[in-house]
């Protein structure tokens, strides 16, 4: 079994930065990522797809990684499905010829697996042609436009980024609809202007001008209420929302679109911190679950650190700083440097971080959905995409006596599919509260291995050919 001082899970901006910092301090690093190329969702593109400061930062990170290539071992196309003991990591390498099992050991773990998109179910959101904003943005960035008439729905800054890249790729946008009211948008501006860096404001302004110049219709206080079609998006119905984001009856109208990008901001990806048994808190101000911290980026489980968007959503600049702090603390605990170095790393990063965190809160205030939006979920709306569990089935389970989310899971199979409850888990607490009428404690699904779908052969330590799938 290979042994490393530090295992960094997720090779995005936070992970690469943590790997470089650790390697610079002289320890050996395993950098594990499920993509074919390192870089994460921001930087895993060939350089010519990136612009301005993004390109500069990517090059700096990749140069650093290259500089320490004798100490940073990259496991690409590799999933972490198990973490046990002090610390043995169960890995599964995805190869086109079949999955391969692998175990490595590490003294410290830094988890930097980033974010996923917040989404609330509505009728038709499972149809081909409906993408998350980030998913469609990834396509558009590479010049691929997945439809002829695209509607951008939901909320959050990703809408602007997506519109910019779609137009650049030659796409045609039917409209942008946002759940926030114009008043809410204006109210959020001071927060943005006082915390955003100059380069972020500049790109934000460029995105806005781009939308104005191309005369894209923009509707505030609107959401998609349903999408119809047989093998793809054929018609999209949008509806006006009131102050609590409750749909206004009779305000529905049709939009002629064949492709929809939809998302309500980002939330941290928590499957691995949950697997490690770290404590989590529901941050009422931010509106999502996050790992609880116990010192410098360390979770409540000693030796397990987090960095980047899998802690709170702040973007890649903050992720790079947090990666550095997590690595410096992990290496300090390993005894490779003294407290002075830790102090100077921390001082250099913490001022920048304060500002990024303020910016994150300002953005979150603009993208956060309010409870009224749950009224869009009808009886036949699929809530769990993987196991095709509808809201009607959840209602029956609650009527039959189910009171907590793990009970719903056992009764309906909600959250038991391939994605392991990463989408339905976002909304199931709210749905139970809505159905039972009382505010109860929020919960998360019990975490179990394997954290990712793997072939049986990998589980038993055998080589997993496709016969085992």
């Amino acid at each position, binding site marked *: 079994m290979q042994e490393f001082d530090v295992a960094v899970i997720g090779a995005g901006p936070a992970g690469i930065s943590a790997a470089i910092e650790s390697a610079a301090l002289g320890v050996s690093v395993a950098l594990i990522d499920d993509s074919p190329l390192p870089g994460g969702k921001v930087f895993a593109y060939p350089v010519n797809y990136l612009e301005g400061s993004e390109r500069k930062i990517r090059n700096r990170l990749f140069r650093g990684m290259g500089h320490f290539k004798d100490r940073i071992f990259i*496991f690409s196309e590799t999933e972490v499905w198990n973490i046990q003991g002090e610390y043995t990591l169960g890995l599964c390498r995805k190869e086109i010829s079949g999955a391969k099992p692998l175990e490595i050991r590490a003294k410290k773990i830094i988890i930097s697996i980033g974010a996923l998109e917040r989404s609330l179910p509505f009728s038709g959101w499972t149809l081909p*042609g409906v993408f998350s904003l980030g998913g469609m943005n990834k396509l558009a960035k590479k010049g691929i436009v*997945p439809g002829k008439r695209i509607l951008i729905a939901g909320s959050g800054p990703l809408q602007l980024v997506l519109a910019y890249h779609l137009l650049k790729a030659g796409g045609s946008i039917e409209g942008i609809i946002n759940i926030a009211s114009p008043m809410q948008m204006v109210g959020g501006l001071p927060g943005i202007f006082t915390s955003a860096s100059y380069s972020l404001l500049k790109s934000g302004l460029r995105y806005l001008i781009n939308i104005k110049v191309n005369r894209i219709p923009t509707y505030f206080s609107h959401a998609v209420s349903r999408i119809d079609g047989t093998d793809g998006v054929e018609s999209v119905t949008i509806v006006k929302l009131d102050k609590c984001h409750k749909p206004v009856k009779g305000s529905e109208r049709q939009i002629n679109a064949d492709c929809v990008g939809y998302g309500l901001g980002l939330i941290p990806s928590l499957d691995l911190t949950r697997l490690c048994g770290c404590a989590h808190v529901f941050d009422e101000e931010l509106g999502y679950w996050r790992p609880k911290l116990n010192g410098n980026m360390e979770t409540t489980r000693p030796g397990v650190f987090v960095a980047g968007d899998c802690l709170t959503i702040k973007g890649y600049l903050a992720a790079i700083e947090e990666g550095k702090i997590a690595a410096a603390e992990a290496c300090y605990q390993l005894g490779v440097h003294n407290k002075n170095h830790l102090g100077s790393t921390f001082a250099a990063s913490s001022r920048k971080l304060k500002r990024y965190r303020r910016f994150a809160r300002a953005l979150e205030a603009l993208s956060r959905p309010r409870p009224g939006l749950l009224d869009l979920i009808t009886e036949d709306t699929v809530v769990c*995409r993987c196991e095709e569990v509808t809201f009607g089935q959840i209602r029956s389970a609650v009527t039959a006596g189910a009171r907590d989310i793990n009970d719903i899971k056992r009764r309906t199979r909600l959250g038991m599919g391939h994605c392991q409850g*990463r989408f339905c888990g976002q909304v199931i607490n709210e749905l139970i509260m809505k159905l039972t009428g009382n505010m109860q404690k929020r919960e998360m699904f019990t975490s179990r291995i394997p954290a990712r779908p793997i072939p049986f052969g990998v589980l038993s330590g055998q080589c997993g050919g496709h016969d085992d799938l």
Partner: protein
Amino acid sequence: MCAKADQHCHKREEHPEVFTIEVNGKNIVAHAGQTIAEAMLANGLKVFRRTRNGSPRGPYCGMGICYECRMIVNGIPNVRTCMTPATPGCKVLTQDESLMRVE
């Protein structure tokens, strides 16, 4: 001590800039650096999978989380096409789970 890095590093093969892949028996054009999902969407193909109830699905999250884009690639089922690079001549089939036997 550290072992050899290359052992676990994925070796990048050089592919021609433009090549074809086979989707449900039909050849479509793909470009180097594209995933299978990107090549299919660029060619206007949207239905990647059918659930056991027969409903159509295509890529949603685009980053390997939702598993909606899984297809049969070179005979291996449940391959996430949004995470798998297109390679010349690879054979891709719609994964129809209504036809798969689930005990």
